[in-house]
């Protein structure tokens, strides 16, 4: 199917570089770090984060607000549930979809939302529900609620790693996205996050999942007259609920 063979293509690149044979493996420090050293790097990161947790939660919260997240800092899971219920009723969210992140074990919001008249669907394929049906549901939903896999204080970003129970689009199709962040998921910088993901890559024999979603506020555009409008193809509103004391 390839119209240009790999050898021809790379051969042409090589000639342009003035070489006649394939270049040897170049010396490049970040690629030299093997599994154990990468693990050590992550241990160092974790220790640094551990010592500065409270400060990082503040920074995350500030940066997230600057990115357009509506931030709620919830001292307890009850308060997180209360925020979500209030939001759902304010928005008249009748149809709610959520991911199957671990965090929902500690934050029992399904019943609370149902008690207020909402319908909650967990987006996780099983024998009873087809992918197509779930997609329809997500397309109609008024609100999508997810956990996160990491949060980055530097940029006010939630990072999601789609997998079983974590759809790519619960956080994308509904007009409102709510992300629940647990304290142990918060890292300081983009460098921290990529060090962690590289370790996952090295440990997973080259597999680190098929997808990684960085979300920093609502969807937006400035394509007409450089005027910023929030809510293009993705959510109009993005809410970040930071659980201050949840157990990891």
């Amino acid at each position, binding site marked *: 199917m*390839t119209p240009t063979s790999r050898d021809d*293509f790379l051969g042409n690149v090589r000639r342009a570089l003035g070489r006649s044979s394939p*270049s040897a493996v170049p010396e490049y420090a*970040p690629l030299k770090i093997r599994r154990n050293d990468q693990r050590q790097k992550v241990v160092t990161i974790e220790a640094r984060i551990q010592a500065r947790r409270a400060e990082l939660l503040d920074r995350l919260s500030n940066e997230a607000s600057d990115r357009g997240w509506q931030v709620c800092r919830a001292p307890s899971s009850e308060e997180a549930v209360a925020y979500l219920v209030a939001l759902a009723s304010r928005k008249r969210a009748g149809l709610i979809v959520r991911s199957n992140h671990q965090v929902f074990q500690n934050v029992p919001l399904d019943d609370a939302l149902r008690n207020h008249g909402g319908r909650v669907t967990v987006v996780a394929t099983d024998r009873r529900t087809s992918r197509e049906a779930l997609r329809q549901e997500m397309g109609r939903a008024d609100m999508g609620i997810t956990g996160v896999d990491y949060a980055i204080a530097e940029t006010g970003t939630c990072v999601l790693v789609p997998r079983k129970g974590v759809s790519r689009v619960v956080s994308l199709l509904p007009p409102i996205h709510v992300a629940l962040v647990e304290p142990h998921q918060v890292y300081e910088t983009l460098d921290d996050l990529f060090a962690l993901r590289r370790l996952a890559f090295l440990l997973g024999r080259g597999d680190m999942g098929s997808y990684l979603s960085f*979300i*920093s506020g609502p969807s937006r*555009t400035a394509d007409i007259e450089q005027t910023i*409008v929030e809510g293009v*193809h993705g959510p109009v509103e993005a809410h970040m609920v930071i659980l201050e004391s949840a157990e990891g």
Partner: protein
Amino acid sequence: MQIKTQNFTKASSRALADEQLQHSLNGIVEGFDHARQEAIRELTPETWDTYRDRAREIKRHTIEHLDYYLGLLADRIQDRGGTVHFAQQSSDAVDVVLDLARARGVKLVTKGKSMVSEEMDLDSALEADGIEAVETDLGEYIIQLAEETPSHLIAPAMHKTKEQVAELFREKLGARRLRSIRDMTVAARRTLRGKFLQADMGITGVNFAVAETGTIVIVSNEGNGRMCTSLPKIHVAIMGMERIVPALEDMAVMLRLLPRAATGQEITSYVTMVSGPRRAQDEDGPEEFHLVILDNGRSKLLADPDLREALYCIRCGACLNACPVYQKVGGHAYGWVYQGPIGAVITPVMVGLPKAKDLPFASTLCGACREVCPVRIDIPRMLLKLRTQVSEGDRSQRKVSLRERLVIGVWSRIVSSERSLALARGVAAFIQRPFSRLGHVRRIPLPPFSRWTRNRDFPALARHSFHKLWAKELKSNDS
């Protein structure tokens, strides 16, 4: 995209006379360039420069070993179940996409923003094959409906006013009562949402490709990139072969640079990293992932050590926003996919210098592009190199006329001796007398100088030359 680079002079005259375009161009400067400056101030210029040095080193290293990293990227993507297609020419890349679409009976394609697909003229190739291809970036969607071409790397519809967009949406989408930009955005959201859900194939560009992990990175704000990579059964990503970084951890600095340089954002709303098709256990995602890697003349830039660093470009558009020429003539004048200073370097090499010999001259060499570039590309140096090629290259490419060379020859004779300069000055001062007023010459009736004074005044020669002043007063004051 059809090459219209030959028409630069005419197209820029038209642009200068277009008041509405001039207004839009002011908006670009106000919007993007000021936001960029503000973002750098906030980060501190010192930190910004550290990131720029780091990013430049990453790109330099990668480009010097591009064959190795392309091989590594292809291997790692195949390890993850993706398919890699190499394409020398843009027509090869078109064939790859058409073959894939035909074999799977694709009827509807949703497309993310991709400048490389503009090089390929992919939309019209798909349409010609009976496949509906819908641009989903709002700016790209607007110009697709208007049947126009992008005028800015990151704001493709910057030349359109909201009134024009409202009229366009009324005509093409039947959307009425679009009073605000928000209304227009909602109208586009509604129409495109249906397309996303029905599309059989998603096509996206690639902002970065991480060789080590076999990952492509898409940076976006609207969410259309996420739609295109999540909903259709097949995802085809198209990249220019220079988009690579070696290591995953290199992405930290790139993600700090690109959004700040482009729009002044600390980070975009979305960064999407794709490593192959969905796994069996995943809830969603495409069943197939294809990566098309295109050369299309990039190896010509690579082969010239003086122009190689043009391949470091991360397509942020900062050099457009900062360029006094782009700020006046806008993107369409450049006549192809890539506009502004970086376009003036890469376009002539990619489409051939004879067709684009005006572009290297579309610069004042003020150096603003080099100053704002997040990877410190020395664009003015490369423009000079291309100018040399134009003026010293074979006769067919030569831009410099006999008359111009004659004038320059006489000029250099005059200025090479003090006596001849003083003499010429005296003559010129005498001649200018009837034409000069308040220190300016409004009109020189003698070609080629008359062309200069058609659009601007020429500063008149001072009453007393510096040489005379020096001899008379300054020298004695000093001693």
